[in-house]
């Protein structure tokens, strides 16, 4: 049974697209079939982060408008044959997405893949609400910083109210992914720590991605960090988070990039 996952945050620049690519590739590396769908119409970037920017012919809006069939718009990753991309349109705006059209595309993708991962645009408007509309589960990407936490809280409210599941009396499974975490600064009281964020947002933690130079290196070369440098702290964090999303019980750690690799056990989980 296919699972529809939305990667969302409210605030821009916190790592939604990086996380979509990292989690998508990690799930695909485990042998499951994955499609990542870019919902950021007008400002697409998932194609660039995945290194597929020169292979885009048709996009989500073309499929919704019937200009292209879904298989014509899907781009298969060159490194991972279980990973596919459905790009957003760069020339249209978010109003080109229709509610019925999105529903139809998601339903079709569910027939073909194990995971449908929707990369939400920033904000709380049409593009973001359509990206979360059909989700079974959500990954809320949050930086340990006040504006990101506040916007995540707003998005959590929308996930509980504006999704198809919520409207039918169900619940979208919510998972918190803390990115750009700096354990040393948190220990010095210069950054919100993991417990603070969990207490404020009350969403179970799915992973902690440390601030890592490898993330920029990976996007520079157009490769998900989990493929570009699987040994890096960020890659290990995404792989662990992907295994947790798939239902495995993986102890929560904060991977580090230090020369002597050690993982600090992080025992606590939110409710």
């Amino acid at each position, binding site marked *: 049974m296919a699972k529809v996952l939305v990667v969302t945050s409210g605030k821009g620049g916190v790592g939604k697209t990086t996380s979509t690519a990292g989690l998508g590739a990690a799930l695909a590396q485990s042998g499951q079939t994955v499609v990542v769908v870019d919902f950021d119409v007008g400002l697409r970037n998932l194609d660039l982060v995945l290194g597929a920017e020169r292979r885009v012919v048709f996009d989500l809006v073309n499929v919704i408008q019937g200009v292209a069939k879904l298989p014509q718009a899907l781009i298969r990753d060159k490194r991972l044959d279980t990973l596919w991309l459905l790009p957003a349109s760069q020339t249209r705006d978010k109003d080109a997405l229709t509610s019925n059209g999105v529903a139809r595309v998601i339903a079709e993708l569910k027939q073909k893949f194990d995971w449908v991962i929707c990369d939400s645009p920033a904000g709380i408007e049409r593009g973001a609400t359509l990206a979360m509309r059909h989700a079974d589960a959500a990954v809320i990407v949050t930086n340990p*910083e*006040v504006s990101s*936490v*506040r916007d995540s*809280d*707003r998005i959590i*409210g929308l996930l509980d*109210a504006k999704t198809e599941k919520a409207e039918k009396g169900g619940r979208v499974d919510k998972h918190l992914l803390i990115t750009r975490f700096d354990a040393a600064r*948190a220990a*010095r*009281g*210069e*950054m*919100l*720590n993991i417990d*603070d964020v969990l207490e*404020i947002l009350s969403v179970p933690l799915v992973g902690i991605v440390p601030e890592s130079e490898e993330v920029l290196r990976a996007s520079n070369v157009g490769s998900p960090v989990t493929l570009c440098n699987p040994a890096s702290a960020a890659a290990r964090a995404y792989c662990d988070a992907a295994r947790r999303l798939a239902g495995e019980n993986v102890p929560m750690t904060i991977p580090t990039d230090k020369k002597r690799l050690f993982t600090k056990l992080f025992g606590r989980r939110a409710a």
Partner: protein
Amino acid sequence: MSLLAWIKPRASAPVARDRLKVLLAYERTFRGQPDLIGILREEIMAVICRHVAVPPDKVQVRMDRGQTVSTLAIDIEIPTSHGTLAATGS
């Protein structure tokens, strides 16, 4: 920067946590009716305008949120030239 501040920098994360807790407690209360101030302003205006001619920019609605108590202040400037009473409600 004093020597003491240099030796022991103040932790700012607890400030961030406390500010977020107060803010989000408030925002969650009014979720689904986001523009309380706007609604109050419009409804109060409608009532006032039924009896007195008041320019819209003469009505001020302010809110100050505290940890335990919040205050809502409404200032209405009613022109005396209309021959009606001058009043300020808070």
